[in-house]
Each structure stands twice: as structure tokens, then as C-alpha cells.
């Protein structure tokens, strides 16, 4: 899958590195060094995706997220050295598809980009069956099978897992999970979610491999790791 990617970063070394990585994966790359040129490039080039640095010389990258979205139908991945969770949540809330912290792993960046592009424009419906390795979750039946062992999912476990499976590979914020699984109750305590996730882990993860199926994005949300 080839796409046109706009790389927005004021550091030349990072732009060069990203260009290398992206072109190796077969993407077409255009560059911008600040917010103004980023908006111009987005308008002219109509990229499929934007890799956006938050620390730009002329304006805060967060402000650019909605503006870039307005320019065209594009996927935005934030790539920043800022690792404060509120920044990540804000970027996601503003419409960014995902968030990658510098220093990043080239392969991981490509994988995230792939997931984001794949989901783009596709309505988020949960698959009937989620498979990973020898794990198979039948979401309709609310049954998880692993190595011949069957476990029944409770209603809440099902709701949470279904939402994660519909967004497999993407981070889903706590807020969104709570809103979906606890029927719009914004102030359902996050500890409910914690316990549901813990119980889910027992049913879907190997005892020696916690985090292999459900990844915990600290302070932001959860991500279901599919086969990739």
C-alpha cells in the first residue's frame, strides 16, 4: 500500500530519517518545516497522512491538528518528544489517529501508520471473530479460546474487547472505552475499567506474556495488538 505522506518537523535530521524509512516502505514523501508551510503543503499535495511534530518554530503542533483535518481527508500521526499524557490525550481528542513518542522505532512507526491508513475511512465495526496466534475470541458468543481452554466473557468484558477489536492496532482512550462500555456515563470510575482489563488479560493472554494482547498506553488508553 503506497501513500503520500507529509512530514512536518523543524529538524532536518529527523525529516531525512523519516524520508528514508517511509520511502523504503514504498511511500511518497513531502516535507514541511513549520506550521505555515505544513498547511500550504497539505492544501497543495493533499497527502494521505501527516506525520506531525508538536514542537514547531511558529506555532504549537496541537493547533495544527484540526486545521490539517480541515484541509482534506487526511490521517494525522503525532510524532513528538513530548511524553506528557495530557498532550497525547489532547492530540487524540483533536482528531489525531495515533501518537508516537520520540525516540521511536522505525518499524513500529510504519506499523502504526499502516494501521491508521487501513482504518481510515472504514467504519469501526467489531469483527465477529478476533484471532491472534492460538487465541480466538468469538465476540458474538462471548467466548475466548486459547490452547483448547474456553473462557466465557462477561458483558462488560465483551463490550470493552469488542471496542478494542474494532480498532485493533490503535490506541483507544479510557474516556472512549468508558463511554462505550458504561453507556455514556462519563464519570464511571477508571478502576472499573482496570478490573475489566485485568480479567480480560487472564482470559486472552499467556501467563508469562502479559501485555502481549492488550497493551497499556499509560494514562491514555488501551491498544489491542493484532497479528502484524
Amino acid at each position: 500500500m503506497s501513500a503520500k505522506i507529509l512530514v512536518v518537523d523543524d529538524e532536518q535530521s529527523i525529516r531525512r530519517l523519516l524520508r528514508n524509512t517511509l520511502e523504503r516502505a514504498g511511500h511518497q514523501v513531502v516535507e514541511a518545516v513549520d506550521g505555515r508551510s505544513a498547511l500550504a503543503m497539505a492544501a497543495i499535495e493533499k497527502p494521505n497522512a501527516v506525520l506531525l511534530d508538536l514542537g514547531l518554530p511558529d506555532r504549537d503542533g496541537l493547533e495544527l491538528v484540526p486545521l490539517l483535518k480541515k484541509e482534506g481527508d487526511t490521517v494525522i500521526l503525532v510524532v513528538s518528544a513530548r511524553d506528557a499524557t495530557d498532550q497525547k490525550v489532547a492530540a487524540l481528542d483533536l482528531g489525531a489517529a495515533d501518537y508516537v513518542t520520540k525516540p521511536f522505532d522505525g518499524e513500529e512507526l510504519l506499523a502504526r501508520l499502516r494501521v491508521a491508513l487501513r482504518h481510515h475511512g472504514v467504519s469501526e465495526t467489531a469483527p465477529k471473530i478476533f484471532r491472534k496466534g492460538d487465541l480466538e475470541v468469538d465476540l458474538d458468543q462471548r467466548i475466548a479460546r486459547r490452547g483448547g481452554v474456553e473462557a466465557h466473557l462477561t458483558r462488560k468484558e465483551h463490550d470493552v474487547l469488542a471496542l478494542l477489536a474494532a480498532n485493533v492496532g490503535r490506541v483507544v482512550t479510557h474516556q472512549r472505552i468508558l463511554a462505550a462500555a458504561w453507556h455514556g456515563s462519563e464519570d464511571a470510575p477508571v478502576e472499573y475499567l482496570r478490573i475489566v482489563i485485568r480479567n480480560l488479560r487472564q482470559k486472552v493472554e499467556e501467563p508469562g506474556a502479559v501485555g502481549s494482547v492488550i497493551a497499556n498506553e499509560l494514562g491514555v488508553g488501551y491498544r489491542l495488538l493484532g497479528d502484524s
Partner: protein
Amino acid sequence: MRAGEPDRPDPDALLRQASQESRGRLKIFLGAAPGVGKTYEMLTDGAARARDGVDVVIGVVETHGRAETEALVRGHEVMPRRAIPYEGRTLSEMDLDAILERAPRLVLVDELAHTNAPGSRHPKRYQDVEELLGAGIDVYSTLNIQHIESLNDVVASFTRVRVRETVPDSILETAEIEVVDIPPDELIERLKAGKVYLPQEATRALSHFFSKSNLSALRELALRRAAQAVDAQMLDHVRALGVGGTWAGGERIVVAINELPGADGLVRAAKRSADALHAPWTAVYIETQRAQSFGEAEHRQLAAVMNLTTRLGGSVATVPAISIVDGIKAYLKDARATQLIVGKSHRSRMFELRHGSVVDRLVRETPDVAVHVLPLDASPAQPRGFRIPRGPWGSRRGYLWTTAMVAGVTAAASALFHILDLGNVALLYLLPVMVAATLFGLRTGLFAGLASSLAYNFFFLPPTGTLTVNNPENVISILVLLGVAIVTSQLTSRVRAQADMAAASARANAALAGFLRRLTPLGDPVELARAICEDVARLFDLRTVLLVPSGGTGLVIQAASDLQFRLETMELAAAQWAYDNGTPTGKGSGTLAASDWYFQPLRAGENVQGVLGLAKENGEDPLRPDQLPLLTSLVDQAALALERLRLEEEMRDVDVVRTRDRLRAALLSSVSHDLRTPLTAVMAAAAELHHGVTPDLIATIEAEAARLNRFVANLLDMARVEAGALNLKVEAVDLTDAVAGAAHDARRSLEGHAIQLAVPPAMPLVKVDQQLLHHCLLNLLDNAGRYADPGSPIIIEAAHSFGMLKLSVIDEGPGLPPGREAEVFETFRRFEGSDRAVGGTGLGLAIVKAFSEAMGMTVEAANRTDRTGARFSLCFPSPLIVRNSSPESEL
């Protein structure tokens, strides 16, 4: 004693000299009588200095309209006086502040003994002069001999004129004295010629005062006093130099004072002897039971005598004791006194026969001490004849009971009379007498004795029914009854007195001990100040305020007994004065006495820590003299406590700086090593890539870059800890979740190790900052990954016991040096041969500890017991553990 090492310079004398070097110098023109020409002499002298180029101003000079004097004044710059409105009139006084502002080299101040108008800063002019001297300004002043405190009553004794305006002798001791002397005949001539100005009210006494014999005597006194001052200054000089000289063999003088008028005479006499002998002296007041019956007048008198003593340079001691003689004896022994001065008693012969003369006993019982007995020159208000020892009249209840008891005994004796003989009946009457004397005191006891005798006489002594006595034996019975009453009540009252004294002393000690107990544990200056204020306010029933210096802007209120509270400018000035000069100020003291508050400096060693202000609700004098000793003890303790806090704070500051320096040094060495090593590896490997790409080079670059990344992350974390900028975002966290996150992020360091998760499913959630916990786990896993033997499993185990939740990371490897496990959490601690080889930073575990403690957790490090390896644990105390809640409820 100093005499033992005569060649060493005396530190006190050196200190006195040193403090004088920065002070201004005082020259006093001393005259024997008004009219000898002191002011003239002073002005002439000042003019001479002015001609030498010295900056001279006149502070205040009274010319009394004399032409020669006025001519001299015109040659000088005269400071304008300050007008002080007082009771409708306007008084003009020397403007002290203006002179301080003008800061001349020398100021001329006439009439040193002058009393300032009410409302001035100091009640007396000599105090103004002392402030000028303290500001480094030289002062010329004039003084007549009869105004010198210690000579005041000597002069009065032969001139019969007593002046009220006196200056303390201490001011003469550091002054240069010039005696302005003219022969008596000439002075009388000048007086007759009208050249001597005299105040109106003094004229009637003058004919006597200006007699030739008086003037001769005054002249002699003046010359002698001047010589004495020179002598004292010489001696100070000699002592300061450490020149061996004749020492006045360590004499110590004690004068016993009391509340009677005339005690001031004793104090002045002690001062004169002390001066003659160059001896230290103390006025001691023996506080007996009597003091409890003192009224306002007695307290005032005693306070005046004590004040006088301090003014004359003596020290004051108050000794509680059962009897005067015992108290004096004990004090003499403590003070190693050599001379005792006591006043001659006005007690009657009768009293002395009964009680023994105090003087006789002192002379007899203190063989090592020279006892001087002086007359008390004022007679007591009313002569005291035979007096029953003071005591309350007793309650009416006591008399009723006594009457009832006597009646009861009479009834009982009548009933039993047929089996008792007369003597036994008398014995029965002893009962009410003893009971009444014991319970109700002497008067009631005597009443019982009298009533019993009467009843005995009337009902039982033949002839019964009359009050006559026909047998000498019966007279004896009656006397015995009365005697028993007296003896019993005396014994009881003595025991009671002792108990009361002991109780009073115990109360004071308990107050002091309680105060200490309260102050000792306090580590916060504000709490300490509050405790001091509250305790002193409670003990003395006063309003209190504690002021402390605040960086350069003067004193600020640290605490007060009542919360809505501010001090007026006047009070603040008084407090500032007390702080600057280290002397009590305000109401009841000699300085700024118009203030409602009394300010006591809190002094520990050389440093004044602050000022304690005291005031009574109704504006009276806040303290009685008998409360002063306890207050002094409390204030001393308070000052020490404040000093302790200050020192502790200094120590802490030093400690912090030292730790910071150590950290900085460690950080520099760590940065230079831990940044450069991976950078070198990355640069070298990258250069090598030009010659061909090998998987080894790529792996090196990746590993070293990861190591750099981790190091930077740790430095950032540590910087946040050091800056105290950990904004905790506490939320409920599931340990499995946390471990999953950490294991994912640490997967690179954990390569080759299997993770065994032993976290029971029902573990409760914990309330922590997820991010910080993540960093803790990351560092622990990273640490385990680096030290564990290759291929060995790393165990993550959680256990919940005794209300404590413990999450441990357990590895299989070399473990920790035994006995030094806890050191592993110190910043930059790397055990020898362990860390560098595997690229640690020495920061990771310190971050674990700092983060854990910031979240209210503790950390533990230990060696495994089942095999070699280390076990690091994060301990979550019960307040951090969340009760289980159900997520399945349909909200």
C-alpha cells in the same frame, strides 16, 4: 578566681575596651555645686575642639541668661530643640533624633541628670547621652556631685537637700571626668553677686546648702569621686593588658535587701564598698512566707530597690527560703561572698527575744564572712510591738466549729464527770484546742483555748457555776490550755508555710518543666513562637506577642496570644529598641515606659533571637517583681529553643549544600562517562558503516543509542525529583496492567529472560501515579535484565499480607553485597565491578526510591534466600490500597 592567673588579660576588661572603641567618648564636667562654672568650662573646651577642626554642635545648653555663657554659645552650631506638648504647656527637650541624624563628631549636652518631659524616648537625659555614645558620637556633659546615685544620700545626709534627679554611677565609670573646681569662698561670693542661677523652688534650702562647710565637703566628694573614676579606668587598663598588679583579693559583697523603706540606703552603701574594693556585688532578696502577704506598696518598694541595684551596676538575686537567716546563709555559700551588708532591725526587744536576732545569728553562723550592720535610715510606717505572727483571722466557720467542739466536750465531760477526776477533764479540753489550732490557725486556736478554759472553769472547777479560781493548780491548767493552742498552731503554721513554699517552688518548677517539654519537640519556628506566647500568656495571665527579625526590614510578629492583633508604631519602636540593645524596654522599664507593653529580649549567648512582648489587659504593669525570676527562666529557655532551631536550620542548609555538591560531582562524572561511552560507540560504528554494513555494527548502534535514551530519561526523572516538581496524578492502577506496560517498554533489556508473573488474580488496585510507578518498574526490570544470569527467568511477584501490598522483582544472579543492600538505592551508587560492565547509570534505583517515596510507598532490597540473586520490592501501605469495587454494575 582570677587572682590565680594574674598575667592573662582579663577578657571582660578587653571586651569593655573593645566596645568602647566604637563608642563615642564621654567627658563629664563634674562640679561640687551649682554655679562653679561647669557649663562655661564645657563650652570653652568645646570651642577649643572646634578650632582644632572638630565638628562640634550644641545639643542642649542652659545659659540662664548669663552673658559670658551666651557669648560662648553663639560661636557654636546649636541644634534646635524639640517641642513636646504636655498638659497644656509646651516643654522643649533636646532633639535626640535630629542630633543622630546630624551625626556630629562632638555634641555638648548640659545637665546630664536632667529628667526629660513625659513622652520622650527616654525618661532621663543620661539615657539620651548613652544612645549618642552608642552611635559613635562624643559627648561633653555637666554634672553636680549630688546627682550621682551612690553619693545621693551621703550628700543628703549633710546638706539636708535631697535631689530626685540622679544618674547611675556606671555612666561615670567609662567617662573622662574633669572637676570644675573653685574655692568655696569664691563660690559664695558669686552666689551673693547673683551670678549663680538657682531654680525657684530650691531657694529656701539654699542658706543651708551653700554654707562653707557643706561646700568644702561637696568639693572633697567631687575630687574623691573623680579620683576613683580615674582609678577604676586605670585598673581596667591594667587588667586588659594583663599586667600583674595589686588585686583587691577577690572580695565579693552581698547586701541583703527587703521591702522596708531604707533598703535603698543599704544598696548605695554596698555600691560604695564595692567601688572601694573593686569587688563585684549582689543584692539578695530572701523570699519567705511573708512575701505572700505583701501588698502593692511592698512589691513596688522591692522592685524599686532591685531596679536601683541594677542601675548601680550590681546584680540581683531572689532566694526562696523558710527563714531569712537560712536563705542568706545558703546564698553566701553559693556566691562565695566575703562581705555581707545587712540593715539594723527595727524589731522590738520582745520580738528578738522570741525569735532571736537575725543579725546575731548571721554573725554567729557565718564565721567566714564580714558582716556589716547598717541602720535603715527610714523608720517603718508603724512601730511594731509584740505581734502575733501574721496570719488570717480565720473563717467564721472555724469559730462556729470550735464553739461546737467546746460545747460537745463540755457535754461529754459532764456526762462522764462521775468517772473522771478534774485533771482528766482538763485533758479532754486539749482536744478541741489542738483540733482548732491545727485546722483553723492560731487565732481560732487561742479562741478555743480561751473558750475551753472558761468552760472548764465555769462548769468543772470548784466553785462551779462561777468564773473564779481558788486553786493555783487550776491556773496552771488554764495556762496549759492556752499554751497548747499557741504551740500547736505555731507548729502547724510552720509546716503549712513550708508546704506552701514547697508548693510555690514546685509550681514554678513545674511551669518551667512543662514549658520545656512543650518547646523541645517543636521543629517549626512558628509553632515554637506560638507555644512560647501561649504558655507565657497562660502562666502570667497576660497578652503576649513574639517578634522576630525579618531579613533587613526590622521586626515582624511571629506569634501572639490573641489572633487579631497589631502593634502601634510606638510599641514597634519599643520592641525594636529592646532587640537592638538587648535590654528590656517599655512599661515598667527605664526606656519608652509610656508604652503599654513590656518587651523582653530573648537572648541566647551573644545573639538576641527575638523580643517577647507582655501586656496586661487593663494596661497595668504586666509583671510583679516576684514573677520576674520565673519569667527570666522561661525567657532564657525560649531563647535557647529559638537558638536551637536557628542552629538546626543552619546545619540543614549546610547539609543540603554539601549533598548538592556531592551530587553535582557525581553527576558530572556520570555524565562524562555515561554519555560519552555510548556516543563514542555510536560514532565509531557509524563511521565503520562507510566500509560495509555488518549486523554487529547495527546492533552496537541500536544498543548504545537505547542506553543513551535510558540515561537521558533517568536524568530528566532525577531532575524532576530534585526540583520537587513531581505533580502526582494519583489514580487506581491495576498491578498486572502496570507490569504489562513496564514489561513491554523494557523488552529490549529483558531479551533472553523469561518473565514469570506471580500476581494473584484477586489483587486489589492501588492508588498511585501510574507514570511514576511505570518508571519504577521499568528501572527495576531494566536493573534485573542487566544483572541476571543470561537465560535465567525474572520473577514478578505480588503478595498481600498484613494490610501491606508488596510487588517484587526477583532475579537470578550475583545479588547484592551482603549487609549493604540498602545502599543500592543511593544516587550514583554502583557496586564495584558490577555496573559499568553492563552500562548502568547509577540513577535508576535512586529514581525508584525517590518516586516510590513521593507516592507514599517504600522500597526494599534484599538477597534471595533460595538461591543467589536479588529481590527488589515496592511496598504499598494500606492507605494506597483500593477496596474492591464491581465493574459489572450497570451504571
